[in-house]
């Protein structure tokens, strides 16, 4: 049986398939707890990554014709992205575990020969303590890279660092999936 096809970089010109409205997962009329997730992507020099495709996927609320569950947003000239979506609830983990509410985030960019995958959890959620992924990361600074911070009502923020920054900023935890 053939192995899965090899990946290649999305390159710097992927915006030919960019449709800015994809960053709003509520655009088809989904109702629920609407939130904004903003953030930035920076490289090992601490420089803004201005040509990335940031993709958001959430298994909850379940996708349907009003809610795609998936969004894509470019990083802008400051390396910033912004999604509008519905706040996810908990989803089952493996075995009897429950997973705390989270987004899956995939990053594609020039210089990434295959996508990088990470997650964004919600600061202060009591389920974070028992979440299997968060619990598996011993270093609290690294664990914190997976947790979006509240920026006021309905606004969450997560900053993604592809490498340790010049002032020692912690590299985001990326996932082997």
């Amino acid at each position, binding site marked *: *049986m*053939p*192995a*899965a*096809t*090899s*990946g*290649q*970089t*999305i*390159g*710097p*010109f*992927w915006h*030919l*398939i960019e449709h800015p409205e994809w960053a709003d997962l509520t655009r088809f009329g989904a109702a629920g707890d609407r939130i904004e997730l903003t953030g930035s992507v920076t*490289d*090992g*020099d601490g420089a803004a*990554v201005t*040509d990335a495709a940031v993709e958001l*996927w*959430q*298994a909850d609320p379940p*996708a349907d*014709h009003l809610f*795609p569950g*998936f969004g894509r947003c470019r990083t802008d000239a400051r390396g910033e992205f912004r999604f509008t979506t519905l706040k996810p609830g908990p*989803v*089952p983990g*493996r*075995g*009897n575990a429950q*997973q705390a509410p*989270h987004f*899956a985030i*995939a990053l*594609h960019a*020039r*210089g*990434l*020969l*295959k*996508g*990088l*995958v990470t*997650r964004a959890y919600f600061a202060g959620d009591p389920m974070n303590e028992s979440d299997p*992924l968060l619990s*598996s*990361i011993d270093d609290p600074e*690294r664990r914190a890279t997976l947790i979006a911070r509240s920026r006021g009502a309905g606004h969450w923020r997560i900053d993604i660092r*592809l*490498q*340790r920054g010049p002032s020692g900023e912690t590299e*985001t*935890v*990326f*996932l*082997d*999936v």
Partner: protein
Amino acid sequence: MESARDPIPFRPYEPGTQPPYDVPAYGSTHKRHPQEALARLPHTVTEVAGPRFNPSQFPPIPDLSAVNGKAALGERIIVRGRITDEGGHPVPHTIVEIWQANAAGRYQHPADQHDAPSDPNFRGEGRVYTDEDGWYRFISIKPGAYPWRNHHNAWRPNHIHFSFFGSGFAARLITQMYFPGDPLLELDPIFLAIPDKAARDRLVCKLDMTLTEPEWALGYRFDVVLRGHAATPMEG
């Protein structure tokens, strides 16, 4: 603690078939590749489920070779192929996103500064869906090679970018299709970043005269394999 109700994970990638993140010959990886080990994550519903695209909300764009009925310049081509998973099963009704440079090697993109002509009749975006048996097809123009400043006199081989989703988010695939006989392939750090030669060669489409439309366009065949599920739920 595994349970029989757990989602069946995707199979691990075959060694050598995927490029690493850190590729010294590809300059853009230097400050962008993770330096810490990736955290292992046994697949859950988040990884095994994935988006579905509905053509009524994401309409097809099956012909890149014209804008408003005006034909783009260049060599018209037909690209057709079958998308299967690693178990050999067709992947039906899945979205395929496509983008590429024009025949002169210029992207319709504000950041592309290559001194080659843009073509108002070539936008460079396509979107198609596989049929119930995993087949897709689109019409385009053979893209040109272009310089990319990675190293002195660096030129990308002719290529078309593809994006696939498959059955779950962990099967997401973004790749590039190359053309047979292109001498730039053996000079390209992006193509050569894939360690396994057989895997690299599968990114090269094949001229297929059965796909050709006589007196109109050449046909190329490009088959794609997306991740399949592990044989048992316990392998995750």
